[in-house]
C-alpha cells in the first residue's frame, strides 16, 4: 500500500503492516477525539516513525495516489480536527 505523510512524501509499505498501523492510528484518533494535545504528539510520532521505518520512500516523480494519508509531523490536534471536519484545509487541486 502507498502511504503519504503530508509535507514529507509517499512511502510504499508492505500490506502486512496494516494491522499494526491501524493500532498506532487508533491512539492518534483517540487523542484527536478527546483533543488531548499531550497524548497526540507521541501518538502521531509513533505512527509516522512506523511508516518511515517499514516503508520505502517512493521516487519523487511517481504519480500515484495514496491509500492512506497522514498528518504532517508538526501537526496540532486542532489542525487535524479541521482537516477531517471540513475540506477547507486542503486547497482545490485542479
Amino acid at each position, binding site marked *: 500500500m502507498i502511504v503519504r505523510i503530508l509535507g514529507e512524501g509517499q512511502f510504499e509499505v508492505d500490506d502486512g503492516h496494516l494491522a499494526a498501523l491501524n493500532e498506532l492510528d487508533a491512539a492518534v484518533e483517540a487523542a484527536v477525539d478527546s483533543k488531548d494535545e499531550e497524548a497526540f504528539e507521541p501518538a502521531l510520532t509513533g505512527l509516522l516513525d512506523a511508516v518511515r521505518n517499514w516503508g520505502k520512500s517512493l521516487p519523487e516523480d*511517481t504519480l500515484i*495516489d495514496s491509500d492512506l494519508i497522514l498528518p504532517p509531523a508538526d501537526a496540532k490536534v486542532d489542525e487535524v480536527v479541521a482537516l*477531517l471536519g471540513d475540506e477547507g484545509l*486542503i486547497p482545490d487541486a485542479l
Partner: protein
Amino acid sequence: MSIMKRMSMIFRAKANKALDKAEDPRETLDYSYQRQLEMLQKVRRGVADVATSRKRVELQATQLQQQSEKLQGQAQQALGAGREDLAREALTRRAGLQTQIADLQTQHAQLQGEEEKLTLASQRLQAKVESFRTRKETIKATYTAAEAQTKINEAFSGISEEMGDVGMAIQRAEDKTATMQARAGAIDELIASGALEDSSGQPNDDITRELEQLSAGQNVDAEIAAMKAQLGSGEKPKAIEGESGDAASGQTQPKAQQEGQS
C-alpha cells in the same frame, strides 16, 4: 474509521470533484498542467517569502545583540563612575533584550524549518509536474477521449494529491510567517521608538544621555584640574617676570572664570 483512511478519502474526493467538471477529460490535462505550473511558482514564491522573513529576524537579532552588548558596557561604565543605580537600570534592560533575542532565535529556527520544508516540497512537485507533462503528451497522442479516461484519472489523482499537500504546506508556512511578522513589526517599532538604539547608531536613550553627561562632567573636572596645574606651574615664571603688568592681568582673568564655574 481511521484517521489515515479518512484523510485519503478527503483528498480523493477533492480530486474527483475536479475531474467531474471536465467534459473531454483530455482538456483537463492541459488545464491541470497550467495549474501545476502556477502552484510551482507559488511554492517558490513561498520559499522566497519565508527567506525574507528569516533574514529580517536575523537582522533584528543582530541589532538587539549589539544593543545588549552596549548596555553591558554602559553598566560597567556607570559602575566605574559610582552610579550603581544607572548600572542596574542598564542591566535590567539588557535582561529584557536577552529574552527578546532568545525569542527571535526560536523564530529563526522555525522559519528555517519552514524554508527547508517548502524547498523540498517544491522539488517534489517539480519532479511530479515534469512526470505529469510527459504522461500528458503520451495520453493525448495515443488515446481517444473514451480510452484516455482511466489513464488520466491515474495521472490526475497522483498529481492532485501532491498539489493538495503542497498547497497545505504553503498555507501553513504563510500562517506561521504572518504571526512572526506581526511580532517582528512590534520589535521594529521598539527599535525605532528609541527604547532601543536604531541601526543609525544615534544615541537617543536616557542611559546614554546620563552617561554622556557624567563623562562630560568628568571631562570638565579633568580640564579644570589640568588648567589648575598649568596655572600652578605658570606662577613660577610669572614671579620671575614680575615686572610685566600684562602677564599679571592675564593671570587674574582665568582665575575668576575658574571660580565662577566651581
